[in-house]
């Protein structure tokens, strides 16, 4: 059974059965990753290009590993080393990729909708690896995979996303995916970092993290961008840490098996204390590991839609 779409641009309109298919497929690829030889011939002969117009280490490496372990030919570039700085437009970049007969493009871009734009221009499958403040679907899929792996289900769980919701593609993709999968989604952060109208997406908004902690099964903690302070969105790191930072003191009131998640990179001691990040409830490194399996599943499933 193939996916409904040739591209993975976001989770907003991805149906439950497609999410389940990706999560289930990832289970078998995770098994591959436990083998001494972590490679299968599934995508032999396919060419994948990672187009990263915004710097990234972990997502790019994760996609590269996923492609290599499926035996695809993969090449990556960062904007700083490409012709983008010479003023080439995305449209021209797209035409060049098309001319080079690439099968799949993994794209990260600072502009909302850039992968959607690309997907209309080229015949290759396009995978969104993060577009501005819009979506980051593979991150949300690996988050859901991790939740399901640790807690056995997603449906009915209460998941709180903490921090800068306004500028987070991780938050948006998680909201869409988790809602589709039947979870209850909370967001918690300073009012200035939560976009208007978000409750219309069916999420509950909180500004007091201590009110939320005892209730929830999962805390997904976002990185707080220090530059938001200078444009007046929050007063200081100290105030943020005091009122929204996750620490062991706060977690005393949490459920015993609460999952602590973070998409990384962590500002230790700001949004998340080091002992919690490295503690028993933290599944942050599992997220990273599962990221490769999820991305293998997506490449495999999209590669099979031809």
């Amino acid at each position: 059974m193939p996916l409904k779409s040739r591209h993975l641009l976001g989770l907003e309109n991805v149906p439950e059965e497609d999410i389940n298919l990706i999560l289930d497929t990832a289970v078998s690829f995770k098994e591959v990753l436990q083998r001494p030889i972590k490679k299968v011939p599934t995508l032999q002969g396919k060419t994948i290009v990672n187009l990263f117009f915004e710097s990234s280490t972990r997502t790019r490496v994760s996609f590269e590993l996923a492609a290599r372990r499926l035996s695809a030919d993969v090449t990556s570039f960062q904007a700083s080393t490409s012709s983008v700085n010479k003023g080439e437009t995305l449209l021209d970049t797209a035409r060049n990729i098309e001319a080079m007969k690439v099968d799949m493009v993994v794209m990260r871009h600072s502009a909302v909708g850039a992968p959607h734009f690309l997907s209309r221009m080229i015949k290759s499958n396009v995978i969104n690896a993060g577009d501005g403040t819009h979506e980051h679907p593979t991150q949300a899929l690996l988050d859901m995979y991790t939740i399901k792996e640790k807690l056995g289900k997603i449906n009915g769980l209460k998941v709180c996303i903490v921090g800068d919701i306004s500028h987070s593609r991780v938050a948006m993709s998680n909201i869409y995916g988790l809602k589709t999968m039947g979870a209850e989604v909370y967001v918690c952060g300073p009012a200035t970092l939560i976009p208007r109208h978000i409750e219309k997406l069916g999420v509950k908004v909180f500004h007091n993290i201590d009110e939320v902690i005892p209730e929830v099964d999962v805390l997904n903690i976002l990185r707080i961008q220090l530059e938001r302070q200078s444009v007046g969105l929050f007063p200081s790191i100290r105030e943020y840490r005091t009122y929204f930072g996750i620490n062991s003191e706060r977690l005393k009131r949490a459920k015993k098996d609460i999952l602590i998640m973070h998409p990384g990179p962590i500002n230790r001691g700001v949004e998340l204390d080091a002992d919690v990040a490295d503690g028993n409830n933290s599944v942050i490194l599992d997220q990273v590991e599962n990221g490769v399996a999820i991305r293998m599943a997506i490449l495999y499933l999209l590669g099979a839609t031809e």
Partner: protein
Amino acid sequence: MKTLLKNGKVISPIKKVNEILDIYIEDGIIREIGKNLIKENTVVYDLSGKIIAPGFIDMHVHLREPGYEYKETIETGSLAARRGGFTAICCMPNTNPVIDNEDTIRFIQHKSANLLNDVFVIAAVTKSNEGKELAPLLELNNAGAIAFSDDAMPISSAEIQRRVMEYLKMFDGLFIQHCEDQNLTKGGVMNESIVSTSLGFSPMPPIAEEIFVIRGIILSEYLNARYHVAHVSTKGSVEMIREAKRKGIKVSAEATPHHFTLTDEAVRSFDTNTKMNPPLRTEEDVEAIKQGLKDGTIDAIATDHAPHAIHEKDVEYAYAPFGIVGLETAVGLTYSVLVDGGYLSLEEMINKFSTNPRKLLKLPEIRIEVNEKANLTILDVNKEWVVDKYKLNSKSKNTPFHGFKLKCKPYGVINNGMVEIFE
């Protein structure tokens, strides 16, 4: 030159005329009106089933010349205007150089001197449109500027705006404002709504417009000066303007066809032709604008025709410039949405496109009478047609209405001794 228009239905709301008549025009002047006119050596047009109305004017057009001739020129923009049924357009001052000096006005007047359509110049209110120092408003007025605007570059300082309005009041000049508090819209690309939240786009809240509208109304009342709100796009603005008019404050307003036709749901397509400023708003706002047009709160329909080249629009949404072309779709959209939709009668539509804006701009009334200048727009109101962006006469093709099925198509324009009948 002699022209005889046969069997057209003449609608002149000013004179309360609404009947099928023949019009005989000689050298641009209406010489005879009546039934069954017969003339020798005359070009005769059979206008059976067509409407003859006083010439339409679009009081909000970006002609891009001088400075951005790759987007549009006075010539191509004028052609688009005529094909859109307009015998007059007013061009906005955000050109390069900015229209803040007599020379640039003269340049535009010179370039448009021999056209069928009139081109009236709207001058900048501050030097270089920077919102800091007053432009030579008396001189610009004497050079023929028809109105004054900060379009695209809203004045941030209330003090400067006060001085602009005070100065213009000396000759009762019309100040047309682009209402936007740019502190509130910084980095924004679309309306703030569930759609901007869903798509993660930086928002432009409706209050950014409304804060300026109320500021302008307060200044207008305080100074007893005229104040015209360009492209009204929010429900709140419509309500404040309605209330101000009720109080007798000298405020007026225009709305664009795109703001009464589309909502911000269109942005979900990521089509950069849905990106304009003010942005597309919600269903509630669209309804408020239609009601505002219906009850007279909004005086005029204007297009905010804003041509941009394909390479400028064919980019990531955030990087695309704001604006769409509008001259050639305005009449069809207005008829289809507002007249067919039951909001305006045909007479009221003619008022929004001709009588009202001309009055605001202090242009002479167009009377369809003997010995008057023939300044006429001819419409094929029952014509159904499909918008094809590749067939636009404008140099730029940036329209979100490609493929739209519309009713009512401009059929011809007559002005300045010239006649153009299409098809």
